[in-house]
């Protein structure tokens, strides 16, 4: 069907009115360009925001204590309380679906008053008391040394892992960090590792300005005993943390002698739920992108139908001549269909190529300028491009159909009479 003669015929016909062919082609190219570019942008936003969620284990929740809002078992309402270290073990025992449960304590803040000194230098940093598991829940790059280990926990070692910004504030350039000592609230700790945050939840600066201390050491040195500020629980992939959440909270209320209906006694942040909301938002955005792109593409298609109708009308006489010479209706129709198809596909390809160029340019710019908030790596997967091309092919056929039918509706004699 698409032999060389047909190509010649088609190209001749399209070439016969180059400017118009170009304008028509532009409509379709523009449509598919917008469609692909829009989806790429949305993918970029999605990737950017997902990156902000970072390598956090998303199937995680944070739980902390607030004040009770109901009296229970003789205990008054408005009572403050803390989790205890034993609660962690209770959760682990009761919920085998949980892969990690880490207790956390925190002290100071990098914008607070100075709490860390090294020789003559001082700084204000966030001090975290943590378990080794925490790095699996919130991954970070250990650039030197190691993270906290279980022997640190067991032996309550005064070993710490410090952020890159802590290094910047307290050390000279190229100075050896591992094995040196730092005073936190007057107590000496030995640096065993340096970390860099891999994610940025909008507070990478704060993270880089923090210090990890073994949880047990933290409790002993800063008089926290076995109190736990908050905990981070991560469920295995097969179990949704959101589904597990009510049971976990109920268990913790029971542990802390809190009324089972006292919702306000415990605060929590469900990362899976938050992530799901964002993903859902982007699904909607993608849909809108598809929809808008498709509408623009549809207007390009209508342009093709329009132009093909004009072409057919203009070429009525030529079609009459061709039929007098022996062209069958199918010959005529298939040629018009193919003209429309070729026009659509070629212009569609140009649109896709243009969009690919744009995507490439954006990626190039991102590479040059470094990461940008909420935007990363805009791509359109090959599946979408293939779908777009499929749409184009169908569009081209549809766009040719009506004009092709019209072209052979007339008797040859009537077609020949037209001037």
């Amino acid at each position, binding site marked *: 069907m698409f032999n*060389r*003669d047909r190509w010649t015929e088609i190209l*001749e*016909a399209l*070439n*016969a009115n180059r400017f118009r062919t170009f304008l028509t082609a532009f409509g379709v190219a523009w449509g598919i360009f917008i469609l692909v570019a829009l989806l790429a942008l949305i993918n970029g936003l999605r990737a950017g925001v997902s990156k902000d969620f970072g390598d956090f284990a998303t199937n995680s929740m944070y739980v902390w204590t607030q004040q009770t809002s109901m009296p229970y078992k003789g205990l008054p309402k408005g009572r403050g309380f803390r989790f205890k270290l034993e609660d962690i073990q209770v959760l682990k025992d009761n919920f085998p679906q949980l892969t990690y449960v880490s207790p956390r304590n925190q002290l100071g803040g990098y914008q607070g008053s100075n709490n860390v000194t090294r020789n003559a230098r001082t700084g204000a940093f966030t001090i975290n008391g943590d378990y080794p598991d925490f790095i699996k829940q919130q991954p970070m790059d250990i650039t030197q040394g190691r993270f906290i280990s279980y022997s640190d926990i067991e032996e309550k070692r005064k070993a710490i892992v410090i952020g890159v910004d802590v290094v910047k504030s307290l050390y000279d350039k190229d100075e050896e960090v591992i094995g040196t000592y730092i005073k936190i609230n007057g107590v000496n700790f030995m640096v065993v590792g340096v970390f860099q945050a891999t994610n940025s939840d909008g507070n990478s600066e704060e993270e880089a300005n923090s210090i990890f201390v073994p949880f047990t050491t933290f409790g002993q040195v800063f008089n926290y005993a076995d109190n736990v500020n908050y905990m981070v629980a991560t469920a295995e992939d097969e179990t949704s943390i959101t589904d597990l959440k009510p049971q976990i909270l109920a268990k913790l209320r029971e542990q802390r002698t809190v009324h089972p209906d006292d919702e306000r006694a415990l605060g929590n942040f469900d990362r899976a739920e938050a992530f799901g909301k964002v993903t859902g938002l982007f699904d909607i955005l993608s849909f809108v992108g598809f929809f808008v792109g498709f509408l623009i593409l549809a207007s390009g298609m209508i342009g093709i139908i329009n132009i093909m109708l004009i072409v057919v009308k203009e070429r009525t*006489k*030529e079609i009459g*001549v*061709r*039929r*007098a*010479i*022996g*062209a*069958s*209706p*199918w*010959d005529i129709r298939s040629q018009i269909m193919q003209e429309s198809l070729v026009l659509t596909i070629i212009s569609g390809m140009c649109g896709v190529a243009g969009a690919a160029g744009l995507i490439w340019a954006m990626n190039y710019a991102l590479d040059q300028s470094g990461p940008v908030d909420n935007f990363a790596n805009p791509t359109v997967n090959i599946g979408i491009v293939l779908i777009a091309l499929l749409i184009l092919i169908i569009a081209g056929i549809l766009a040719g159909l009506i004009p092709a039918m019209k072209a*052979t509706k007339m*008797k*040859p*004699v009537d077609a*020949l009479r037209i001037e």
Partner: protein
Amino acid sequence: MIDLQNIHKSYKTGTNSLHVLKGIDFHVKEGEMVSIMGSSGSGKSTLLNILGMLDEADEGSYTLDGKSIRNLNEKIAAQYRNKFLGFIFQSFNLINYKTALDNVAMPLYYQGVKRAERTDKAMHYLEKVGLAQWATHLPNELSGGQKQRVAIARALASDPKVLLADEPTGALDTKTSYEVMELIQGINDEGKTILVVTHEDDIAQMTKRIVNLKDGQIIDDTRVQQVLAKNAANV
């Protein structure tokens, strides 16, 4: 070769119906050269279009080369037009974005002839009408006479049984007209059946038989002594 019986044709325009052909009986043998004459509006073109299967009669029977032409579907009609008939129009009807050669090759294209063979044959017919050196020119680079020659070459390309010409010289001056008629006479001499519609007597005299049409009927059908266009041109 051609056998028409009791052909009727009317055109409906709005509420009016114009009865153009009122029972035409007409027979043409192979190798004849017939002119159809009549005043303007007498139905000459209508008749030729029915013969050329570009239009259909309302009534009557039409047999072409032993095949009944009645209620054919368009696909078969296209095949018959391609194989049996060659058209020559008053306004040439060349495709203006195709070269002379490609115009001539078109019937062969629709016959499914391969490109090389097509070009060969088309070139052969262009030579025959004396336009070989104009092969790569577009129609608008040719004179009226040359265009009509290209059209004749195109009509011949599929080696049809019958040539149908509707006022082939209508747009040409006398000298060019005679040259074109000379060409057509030559083609007839080689054995092709030719029908020429004309309202010019001198052109009609160059055929071998004149059919006169009036009020939708054949009023006169006579054989004539053919005037050779070659000689007429020298007058």
